[in-house]
């Protein structure tokens, strides 16, 4: 089996200009072979989204930084595990961030303190739009938030409690005093409606 270093040796050295012209999937190939420049670009493109999701879940800057750092270093060390067939690089990164943020949340059992976290930080760190692509992404994110907000409240609530707050279906069932099966049913219905409305709105993921 060729070593990682030997694979590095076969990489062509690209100028920053050419590197920036590569798609995420092409950068991941180079990253998996130890190309730190490719990692820099992946980080540059997705750091804000990763940090934003980590902050949304953890509720504090320190915790969000820790989650984002762990996620990106895991990406660097395990980049070869990315499979294009499973979706975009961005969604893969956000999946890592989500899982690590929820794991940290559950470990720390800090649901209460989290909500009393860094008040006002969100406003201070609101990202300016720097490129057309970022403008598109921000608009798309806003559309998805709107679509999520338009779901029936009982469906939206179980989705948000699970995805952003890290509660399990049994915890949500206890919290809302409804059967677990009802929680799971609402999750499925909500996601299905969200998917259909995303398609109608032309949202790509």
């Amino acid at each position, binding site marked *: 089996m060729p070593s990682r270093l030997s694979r590095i040796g076969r990489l062509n050295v690209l100028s920053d200009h050419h590197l920036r012209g590569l798609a995420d999937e092409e950068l991941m190939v180079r990253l998996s072979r*130890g190309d730190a420049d490719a990692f820099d670009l992946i*980080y540059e493109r997705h750091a804000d989204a990763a940090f934003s999701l980590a902050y*949304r879940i953890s509720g504090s800057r320190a915790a969000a930084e820790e989650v984002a750092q762990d996620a990106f270093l895991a990406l660097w060390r395990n980049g070869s595990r990315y499979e294009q067939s499973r979706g975009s690089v961005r969604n893969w990164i956000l999946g890592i961030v989500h899982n690590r943020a929820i794991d940290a949340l559950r470990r720390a059992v800090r649901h209460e303190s989290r909500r009393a976290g860094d008040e006002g930080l969100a406003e201070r760190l609101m990202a300016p739009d720097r490129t057309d692509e970022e403008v598109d992404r921000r608009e798309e994110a806003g559309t998805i938030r709107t679509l999520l907000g338009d779901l029936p409240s009982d469906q939206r609530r179980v989705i948000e409690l699970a995805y952003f707050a890290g509660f399990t279906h049994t915890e949500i069932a206890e919290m809302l005093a409804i059967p677990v*099966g009802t929680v799971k049913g609402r999750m499925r219905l*909500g996601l299905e409606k*969200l998917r259909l409305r995303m398609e109608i709105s032309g949202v790509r993921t």
Partner: protein
Amino acid sequence: MSVSGPLYCGKGDTAGAYLLGALPEDEAHSFELHLAGCARCQRDIHQLASAADALGGAVPMMTAPTDLGDRIRATVRAEAELLQAAGPEADRPAQRTRRWQSPRFALWPRFAVAGTLAVGILCGLVVGGSVLGSSSPRTRTISASVLQPGVASDVSATLDVTGEHGTLNVSHFPSLPAGRVYEVWRVVAGKKIPTDALFGVDSRGDGTVAVPGSLHGVREVLVTAEPMGGSPVPTSSPIIAAST
């Protein structure tokens, strides 16, 4: 209607809960096993995944702190240089997935060694615990205690601490039996906090793993031998202990 449909497979609406991360770990694992043989649930996953994936990108966008990027890039650059310097021995295969896109990283042994030493029994063989010095003005190298019976005299473990982050290095350690892996723990306020850092050693018994997260408030970094995939609580006694 297919007999593998949700009304018949018994997993009905589970796909949505699974994609949202709302299943406890044991139930998620059970569903993954079921998923492999249920076309209906596979279709549910395929249909609902785009909506679940979209949630992560739908939060209000913020700017990642500049110093966060500086720290991450510095670590990546340093590791890239180490890989170059280490040559072909630097190859590091990846490891398992806990959920469908949830990577936990590890450094697996390249060769299994039969008849390795039993692990997890404290013997008090203390290699050291003092600060040896620093390779740079900002890095402290802490010699860790190796707590294992019958190990060779040349085993050693060190914790390199740079700022609030640490990297554990082991040398001449025994490979673990099949199905076992070394797991790193952080001790905070007397509690052992599990990490995602799982690792093995190469054919020379050497291994390196970053301690996830900040060492701020961490009194000690421990290593135990755990079942493959790691454990949320220690199932054996510490093999390595490094006081920060």
